């Protein structure tokens, strides 16, 4: 133990200093700057003008704040839920030896390593209302085609489906790793006790996959909250702002509308939302840890 003790009490802080510097330069300072700029009206050309909370008021009264927030949460919830379920289902289906299963696993995972822009361009063609592959297939089956990207009701679900398509392979790989960690003797014991396939999954496999699920949902939430590329390439926030999620709204305010103050106000709100979600998740985690710690041994 003595080997692990620092020679000087300041040594741990010195070791943390590089990380602190990086975080300070690229996270804390920009965040503080955004907080300050959110109180100004500034177009980068004329001198900034202090406007107090006017940027927040304008975003609120125009409905952009709530609208973008709601879209982002709905999008994220849909993507995380669907990619987790699909990833798990694919992992259960393909958790077996054989070339076909290996080929299927590699094919599904390949979507994850393709760049977002390439994926968006591919799906732009598939979802095209008039010349797209999906509508052509539907029409061959005698079904009507849909305006996947230009119908306000369908645009966000379409983008969510594309995101799920890309993320599901990643979730599948993580679940496959998790499944391979499930001890075979526990499943055998459950089977000997008369448990069916569903009961073995429900009472043995699923509880043991909980850490994997936590990781899959956390990374899925991070990816879906930061969605930008597919929106930029496929819909540019439209139609009628129905895909104007938070990160795209920030981009639009600063790069298209030339409003640094409003973009900064959105950044602050975005940060607070993520902070709130993180604290909520941490609280749930700690509560669960506490409950497990207090539970009597079986």
């Amino acid at each position, binding site marked *: 133990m003595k080997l692990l003790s620092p020679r000087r009490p300041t040594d741990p802080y010195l070791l943390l200093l590089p990380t602190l510097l990086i975080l300070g330069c690229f996270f804390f300072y920009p965040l503080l700057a955004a907080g300050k700029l959110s109180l100004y009206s500034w177009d*980068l*050309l004329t001198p900034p003008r202090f406007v107090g909370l006017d940027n927040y008021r304008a975003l609120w009264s125009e409905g952009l704040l709530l609208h973008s927030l709601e879209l982002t949460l709905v999008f994220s919830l849909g993507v995380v839920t669907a990619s987790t379920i699909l990833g798990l289902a694919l992992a259960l289906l393909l958790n077996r030896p054989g070339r076909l299963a290996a080929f299927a696993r590699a094919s599904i995972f390949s979507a994850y390593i393709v760049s977002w822009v390439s994926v968006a361009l591919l799906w732009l063609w598939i979802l095209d209302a008039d010349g797209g592959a999906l509508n052509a297939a539907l029409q061959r089956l005698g079904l009507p085609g849909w305006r996947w990207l230009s119908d*306000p009701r369908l645009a966000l679900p379409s983008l969510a489906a594309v995101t799920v398509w890309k993320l599901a392979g990643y979730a599948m790989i993580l679940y496959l790793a998790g499944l391979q960690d499930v001890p075979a003797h526990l499943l055998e014991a459950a089977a000997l006790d008369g448990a069916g396939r569903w009961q073995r999954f429900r009472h043995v496999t699923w509880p043991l996959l909980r850490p994997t699920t936590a990781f899959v949902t956390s990374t899925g939430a991070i990816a879906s909250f930061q969605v930008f590329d597919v929106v930029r390439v496929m*819909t*540019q926030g439209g*139609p009628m702002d129905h895909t104007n999620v938070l990160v795209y709204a920030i981009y639009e305010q600063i790069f298209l509308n030339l409003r640094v103050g409003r973009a900064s106000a959105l950044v602050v709100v975005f940060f607070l939302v993520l902070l709130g979600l993180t604290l909520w998740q941490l609280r749930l985690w700690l509560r669960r840890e506490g409950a497990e710690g207090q539970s009597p041994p079986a």
Partner: protein
Amino acid sequence: MRLPRRALLQGAAALGLGCRPRAAPPGRQLVRLWYTYGGKNRLVLEQLVAGFNAAQAEHWVQPVFQGDYYEGLAKLRTALAAGAAPALSHVVGEVIPYLAEAGVLEPLATRPGVDQLDLLPALGQAGTWRGGGQRPLVCLPFNRSTPIAFYDADVFEREGIAPPESWQALLEAARWLSTTDASGARRYGFACPIDWWFWAALVGQAGGELIEADGRISLGGVAGIKALELWQRMVNEDRSMKPPPGRDYNAWEATNQDFLAGRSVMIWTSTAFVRYLEDNARFNVRAAKLPGFVRRAVPTGGTHWILLRAAPEPEKAGAWQFLRYLHEPAQVARWATSTGYIPTTQSAVRRLTEAGHYAEHPNDAVALAQLDVAQPWPWSPRLFQLQREIIQPRLEAAVLGRQSPRAVMQDAVRLAQREP
């Protein structure tokens, strides 16, 4: 293994050199040019820059690509704030009043040879903005365009119809040309991006002004409503107009692709696409003037060259020399014929006419002739904001969301008149 210190220093130096912009050859003044052209336009501009660099030994223009128009503008503002602006760039007309009022543009009136620029009146500052001639000269036109109609001449001939001259004729032609085949695939008679520029054209045709002579923002008044009603009817009732997916230039590109693929028979787009459409269509592409309602009218578009006041004077002087070179008839003609933009000087038009260019390319002649009905924009620093924040989002709401054009425009006017 330990890396020798010298190797580390050499590596760092190489990295630094790699990031540093290429310097001008010895004895030449570096002129930084930020541009936002892609594809063919980029290629032609780079050839023109190479021609200038080879034609003289005093300056060295270094072109740097900065993304699309809006990305380029954002980078330009950031560079201005950081004190690192280039001497020369080009921006869309809608932001010129805003940049001029912010005091970041170099006045050009005293630059040598400015009086010799024989610009086409409709495309220069004097004709692009109401009262533009009375203001200090801050920009020069180069890639200028107007909205124009392109149509599949083979289909028009087969159907025995002529390009529409009025809104009523447009409605009838679009309906007549729209069909659905046995597989359910729809061919639209007409397609047009739901975009501010084309809406402004319709407002002008319906007799409206975005900002009245007394400075009051009206957004066309009744004309603004009529423009939306026309689109709404064609998209939702007649199903004769395809609103392309996407926004901004993505929607423009989708419109062009639909036309080339035969999914729409007639489109409104920029005159700048004439070469691209002619080269890539498997049918005869013909251009036509936009139709009229109470009058014929088109706004002008594209970008203008600007010199940034904050740049060092020697660099601005070099940039001005480059602009003079670009405005020589040979360069203007080359740019126009290679890209499809309208030539900006009278001498270039004469040169092209004498060379038989317009007889050989009748579509280019249509674009040029349409300048007779070009409508100037209001000179307002808020023009860009009206475009981006007030009008553009509401066009979709009316056309795709089927909201009442009157209510949408009343809301837009209320917001425009209230918000600074």
